[in-house]
């Protein structure tokens, strides 16, 4: 159980579920949840490779911290945009935000 491949499979499942959510959901907040799943899977991969890949230091952990920081920044800006969208269009459906479509 405690080997690299099991972590890679778990992270692949999380990534694919996030991708499916981004492709099918039309609600902006649900899309944001899918993106969080994708970022978590990438971060899990970094830490797993750091442990099993023969690293002498903790580069994967530092990358994982950067990913968590960027995820926080991204969530804040995305929610501000979604709430503005709701104020202007009375809807969080991303398909309704098509006024710039040619």
């Amino acid at each position, binding site marked *: *159980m*405690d080997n690299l*491949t*099991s*972590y*890679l*499979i*778990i992270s*692949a*499942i*999380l990534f*694919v*579920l996030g*991708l*499916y*959510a981004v*492709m*099918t*959901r*039309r*609600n902006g*907040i*649900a899309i*944001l*949840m*899918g993106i*969080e*799943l994708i970022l*978590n899977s990438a*971060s*899990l991969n970094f*830490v*797993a*490779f*750091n*442990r*099993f*890949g*023969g690293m002498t*230091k*903790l580069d994967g*952990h*530092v990358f*994982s*911290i950067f990913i*968590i*920081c*960027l995820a*926080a*920044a*991204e969530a*804040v*800006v995305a*929610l*501000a*945009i*979604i*709430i*503005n969208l709701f104020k202007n269009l009375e809807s969080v*459906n991303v398909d309704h935000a098509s006024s710039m479509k040619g």
Partner: protein
Amino acid sequence: MSMSELVFIFIAALTISSAFWVVFSNNLIYSAVALLFTLFGVAGLYVFLFADFIAATQVMVYVGGILVLIIFGVMLTNQISESTVTQTNRPRLLAGVIAFIIFLMVAYISLTTQWHEGTVQTAEKTTTVIGDMILNEYLLPFEAVSLVLLAALLGSALLSRKQHG
């Protein structure tokens, strides 16, 4: 089968099943609660990888910050009287097929590639090493991340203030 293997299987099953619930639930509140369990499960996997600092950061930033923001967003953007927040998931079958093909590709690559496996790291103090690395090799990315956080703070404040005129 040892105790730690049982706990690992339990945590992995919790993570994956609640991630499925996040993706397939029709009620956004249920999705947010399932996301809570997924994030806790990933924190447990970090503990299994001896990444104690990352696990604590995950619980504090994701569960304490991002998840609360997401639940705020869900509450603010739908009417309370509306019990279920419906969302039309249009091209479901095509998206499912594409996602499954990508999963097969990634799983095949993970299973067949001969990864460079060296000595497996064991439990040690991670915080001193991480602090040392952030202030030496990763000083420039660290400062860049602080600028990004400042820009996100200003940008979200600008986006969410009341418009003039």
